[in-house]
């Protein structure tokens, strides 16, 4: 116990003696958490549309008006030269070109059927899909309207409208930031913890001080505990600033669920993640190696955590990888507790798995840390 206190005292002294590093550890997460969620927005709006109207009828003008007033689209060109319109697609000035053929209204009324042509810039498949979807919906609505109008004029026809009413729970305004802030905070805390911890031990290796420790009777697990606890407190501190200052003041996010539950999970998670950092350090001789390893795994952890893209869409093998990724569980818990107010019963599985990770990584790290070669 005494030994551990000496180890801790030394670690904290070293951390506080390097103000540049300390400032970076605090500033980088705060700045990023403040800015990045604002940038993360999948909601597709401001889709640039160029319309080539060969018909110029009441219907075609109504349709253009409907598209314009839907709020998703910006009309960049109406009735310009058809060739120029395609040029807009090439230069990214337009995302969609709508072509309304000549005789649109006439054919629709007489033949009950007419085509409409969309040319979409589909490099971004998602955007094309969603944008095209919105446009189809607007066109469908328009179709319904004129149909209803038509039916109204022929009162014999029966009408029956089945509609869906959507209720969005937990985030009624579909605010994407509410979803991203907990996720990004989770990633930032992870990076700080894992990198700093991995680099710190390797630095002792590189400078040679670790040999002086290895020749003392200090127990391996005490030495590792001495490294773990300081970075654990830094992680908790950074997390608290993120949650209570940035998330609350900048984004107005107040956790719906129990904050203590969140901290309980954070505590366990940090132990697991620091274990990964320790593990990386035991396999590295230089800081450059540790950084390379940590960067490699961090990148995969981030991509496979469901932070940016939903896990549901992944193939089975990829889903399996996400199950082996501690970050996945933390992001899930963050979002569940902060946004939905999930309680311990809902996330008990997450607790059990994280406990497993924590034990696994730390035992591996202690086992692989050699005082003797």
């Amino acid at each position, binding site marked *: 116990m005494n030994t551990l206190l000496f180890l801790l005292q030394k670690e904290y002294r070293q951390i506080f003696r390097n103000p540049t*590093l300390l400032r970076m550890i605090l500033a980088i997460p705060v700045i990023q958490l403040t800015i990045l969620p604002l940038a993360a927005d999948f909601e597709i709006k401001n889709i640039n549309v160029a319309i080539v109207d060969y018909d110029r009828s009441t219907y075609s003008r109504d349709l253009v008006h409907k598209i314009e007033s839907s709020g998703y689209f910006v009309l960049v060109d109406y009735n310009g030269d058809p060739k120029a319109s395609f040029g807009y697609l090439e230069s990214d000035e337009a995302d969609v070109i709508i072509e309304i053929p000549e005789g649109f209204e006439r054919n629709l009324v007489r033949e009950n059927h007419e085509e409409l042509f969309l040319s979409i810039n589909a490099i971004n498949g998602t955007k094309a899909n969603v944008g095209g979807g919105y446009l189809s919906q607007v066109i469908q609505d328009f179709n319904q309207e004129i*149909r209803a109008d038509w039916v109204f004029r022929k009162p014999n026809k029966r009408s029956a409208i089945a509609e869906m009413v959507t209720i969005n729970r937990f985030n009624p305004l579909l605010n994407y930031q509410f*979803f991203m802030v907990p996720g990004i905070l989770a990633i*930032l805390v992870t990076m700080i913890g894992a990198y700093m911890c991995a680099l710190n031990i390797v630095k002792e290796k590189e400078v040679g001080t670790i040999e002086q420790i290895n020749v003392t009777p200090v127990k391996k697990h005490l030495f590792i505990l001495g490294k773990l606890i300081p970075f654990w407190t830094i992680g908790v501190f950074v997390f608290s600033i993120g949650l209570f200052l940035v998330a609350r003041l900048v984004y107005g996010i107040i956790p719906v669920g129990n904050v203590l539950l969140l901290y309980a999970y954070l505590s366990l998670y940090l132990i697991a993640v620091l274990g990964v950092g320790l593990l990386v350090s035991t396999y590295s001789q230089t800081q450059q190696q540790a950084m390379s390893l940590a960067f490699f795994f961090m990148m995969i952890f981030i991509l496979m955590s469901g932070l940016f893209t*939903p896990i549901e869409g992944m193939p089975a093998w990829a889903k399996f990888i996400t199950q082996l990724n501690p970050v996945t569980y933390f992001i899930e818990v963050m979002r569940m507790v902060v946004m*939905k107010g999930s309680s311990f019963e809902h996330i008990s599985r997450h607790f059990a798995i994280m406990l497993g990770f924590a034990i696994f990584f730390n035992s591996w790290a202690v086992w692989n840390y050699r005082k003797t070669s």
Partner: protein
Amino acid sequence: MKQLFIFIKKEFKHVFRDQKTLLLLFGLPIAQILLFGFALTNEIKDSRIVVADYAGDGASQQLIERFRQNDSFVLEQSLLGADDIDEVFKQGIVKLAVVFPEQFEKSLIHEGKAQVQLIADATDPNTATTLTNYAQAIMRDFQVSYLGTASNLQIEVVTRNFYNPELRGTTNFVPGVMALVLLLVCVLMTSVSIVREKELGTMEILLVSPFNPLMVILAKAVPYLILSIINLTVILLLSVFLLDMPINGSIPLLFAVSTLLIMTALSLGLLISNSTNSQQEAMLISLMGMLLPTMMFTGFIFPIENMPVPLQVLSNIIPSKWYYIIVKDVMIKGLGFAAIWKETLILFGMTLFLLVVSIRKFKTRLA
């Protein structure tokens, strides 16, 4: 010149002797291409939904059957109340509930109107919107067939998707991965390897040698330049042969602009190494400081035009954003230099600026 060669050889040896660095240099791009190519997508398949059918009549059965046949959904039927649904959402597995009220068909026929409730877990707004859109589409189809009004005044939308007819995510991601990997890996490697020499004191030895200090820096940069070009080749080969990506434009042009981005990255790495004193600081800046912003401001995950204006302005200082635009134009749209000269000029300007600033810093340090 011969001395420069010796230095470059030494740097290559450093890199190749270290498997972990090689893992990062070559493993990362390969892993990213594989993940983005095969695992990461915004599409949603097999999403588990709960259906609560209080009607149990012909119309609701028909509609449920349509849900069942849709690839996006995996159905689970149970009669849940609103509170129960929240409870299910809190466990985080089910993301959507469809509730049919009693007498659904009756109201539809007699009153000409009936409602189905869609209750979505909107924690992830993107998933929620996508799922409700899918459900709405099913509803529209149902209505058209149920009422038999399909033939009335039907506007049929004919869509042509340019550049990416199958709407694959990879077309968008591959240029993004190229930008991300080339920029981050180069910045990280150069900044750290130079600061490392400072930290270990070997930099002083090099600086007192009769060698021009700028040559020392150049020798540090050349191996990473070469490795990055190899890297780029690997990424391109993988995307063409594994992901069936097209290269519609000029390959030499693609390599030329990529080399320019690598130079930008090397200059940035140089600047970071000249502004920090320890590997830890250099890594914090080039990793923690750059990883997420580069991912987000390049524009391949989140569209830049969606961001608030100040952030759109901010995104202009991220070199990979410009490179991403260039790669999309050249590789996918098959455009020539005329289409990308502006972006190229910006990258060139950035490189020059970074180089001048870092050489200034380097010189004052020596003086």
